[in-house]
């Protein structure tokens, strides 16, 4: 059940992180490590692709919160792309759309970074 995968693709100075499976209290540290590495590499323009994310728990949501301030201070951002309806519902209930840009296409998020 805790099948979870994080992969990453860099397009110029933009990093795209792909989440797959279940992001819960058990798998959250994996995602945390991935984000920490990006911050360490000073790669703070981040797009998280949620297309294959089946489930996100409050611990998973907490990971975004743990990094967002730091990343924004460094001039970067975390943009969320392609969430499924179910995952979007979770983000929406919590009020994430107020705080994060959530777009339906990964390219859209990348474009936004490029436009600056």
């Amino acid at each position, binding site marked *: *059940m805790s099948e979870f995968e994080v992969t990453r693709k860099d397009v110029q100075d933009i990093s795209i992180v792909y989440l797959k499976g279940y992001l*819960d*209290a058990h798998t959250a540290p994996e995602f945390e490590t991935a984000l920490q590495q990006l911050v360490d590499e000073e790669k703070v323009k981040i797009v998280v692709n949620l297309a294959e994310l089946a*489930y996100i*728990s*409050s*611990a998973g*949501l*907490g*990971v975004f*919160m*743990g990094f967002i*301030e730091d990343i924004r201070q460094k001039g970067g951002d975390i943009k969320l792309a392609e969430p499924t309806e179910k995952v979007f519902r979770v983000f929406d*209930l*919590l*009020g*994430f759309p*107020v*705080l994060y840009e959530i777009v339906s296409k990964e390219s859209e998020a990348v474009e936004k970074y490029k436009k600056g």
Partner: protein
Amino acid sequence: MHMKRGLIIWSTGTLLLLAALATLSGNRVFTAPSVAAEGLAGAAILLLCWGFAHLEKRADRTLLQTIGQLGLHAIILGIAVFLLKRQYAEMHTWGGADTGGGPGIGWYVIFAAVVYLAVRVLILIQGLIFVDQGRRTSGLFYLLTAVIVLRIIQTFLTLGSGAEAPGAGWEEEFDFSNATGVLTVLFLIMVVLNGFRCKWIHYLNRQQKIAILFAGIAVNIIAGTAGGSLGGTLSRFSITAGIFVRDIITFYLVYSGMALAGVLLQLPSAGIMDRRMRQIRYLQNLGAELGSIIEKSELLSTSCVLAAKMVKADVTWIEMKTGDGYRLAWSSGLSSQYMEELPADMKKELRTLIDTAKPSLLINNVPRNDVCRQMASDMVRAGSVLAAPLMFKDVLRGYIYAVSHSRFGFSEENRGLFRAFADQIGVALENVQLAQVSIEQEVYREELKLAHDAQMRLLPQTMPAVTGIELDAFCVTANEIGGDFYDIIQVNPERTDIVIGDVSGKGASAAFYMAELKGLVQALAHHHACPVEILTEINGFVKTHFEKDTFVTMIYSMLFHKERRLVLARAGHPPAVRVRRNKTLWLEPAGLGLGLATNDIMRRILKKQELSLVEGDTIVYLTDGLIEARNRAGEEYGEERLRQILLDMDNLPAAEVSERIRNHMQEFIGDMPQHDDVTLFILRLPEDAPNNKERD
């Protein structure tokens, strides 16, 4: 019962014997024995044997007491027979058979005693034979008694047929013209076979064996010289009884002779046997002592001390395996510093030697030993070394060493003993470890339970009785402690606040935060009349005091009784639902999780929702644990499933609604473990509440 029956049989036998002998004593004609009296005497003996055997079952004697009694009986029997013999001899001198003179009645009393003693001797020997009896032991013994009985009967029958009375000597016994000879041979075979049954010798220690050997020889010399060469003495009194007594004396002499020979043969090894027995007992005691220790250092120290005592060592120490190396765990008799200073190479070589040595390693001359010569010269001053591995089920845990300052300080025998002791330490070490693990788990479980109990106490223990509304709630935590909570605050008679919330993350930290929130909510409820204000205040607190990645979702609702108005705000929490006449309404005003943003943003985003309630309305508050509960197929319980069941439950009391949802969810997840807390809170305005009516 046995006792009573035994006594009856025994006294009947005694009476019969006395009657028979009285008759016999009256019959002074030497050559014409009374058949009836002889029959009576025979029967009396059988009854006596039977009676004594019965009584013997109740006798509770130790082995030594039995042996002592046997010796005593043998001496008295010998002396009594000796007296009878002298009387018999005098009788011959005085007048012989022709005169028709017989012994006086007094002598018959002594003869009765002889018969009596003979029976006792037989029974006492039986007691010895039956010690540690084998498969055929009792059979052999009863065969012997049967042969003796047959001999008595046969003698009696010879009498009855009017043939010449069987005589005195062995030559007649071996008369094969009738059954007598065959029975005699059988009797002797049985006597010898029973003579081998003396396992009781093994239970005597060396000193007891020596004492019994000398006492036994003395007794047998006295009994033998006094009672031996009977000739026809006993037959003169009673022919049947005489045969019996003579057989018993023969049996006694053969049995005691063989037993004493056995004792004599075992005497040289008696010392070793004794030591073995002592060692076994000692090891048993050690096992029990070590087994009762549940603390590791105590086990090691006790082991060192006991090992030193057992093999009389000057220094002992235990080395325990740690990861890839070895660590000196305990020493006794010398500072551990010296053992630690021993060269590592030497210690390693020593270990290899121990691993291959069986049963344990013994180096008797350390100064001449290539491997551990150094141990002789330094502070350890080893003369000899004894060492064994500490194992449990083929797993090596360490080694135990014993050192004597003198060369050849340990015997060959110590090797086995030392290994046996080391094995016991191995088992005890395993026990200690198991005990430790279970204690730790117990403590951890206990702590979790305390935390869980403490957390559960933070939730309202009972629903407050609020006029005009029904309340019900349940909270099932997935782990021992979770982050869900709810509360009801009666701010004033006109206003009741209902709060439900969920702290992100799980476990202890979530529970701590929850406890803080409870206090905060209780305090804020009395200061604000708007849920948005209260949630914003809480947001500020969460943002500043909680971990960066921790947030809280919450619904804060206020029920104004008079207007039947519910005002609520939702901070990122799954929406509550209003059920009214087969219709559901999700209460989802815009909101944001607490701790996600600043108070300014929060105040801007949070919207309050107001709704008026009517009789029969039910509001269901929940946490995401209910919606996200999954079954084995991986499906979520979901909002739709909840909606359906709520529609089915229109017009049910709050407690019933709560109960049914809980069962429905349990049924849905089946045997899947619950992975998140599930909390449900029901608020209902009963349709037929009289109080409600009054209000209108």
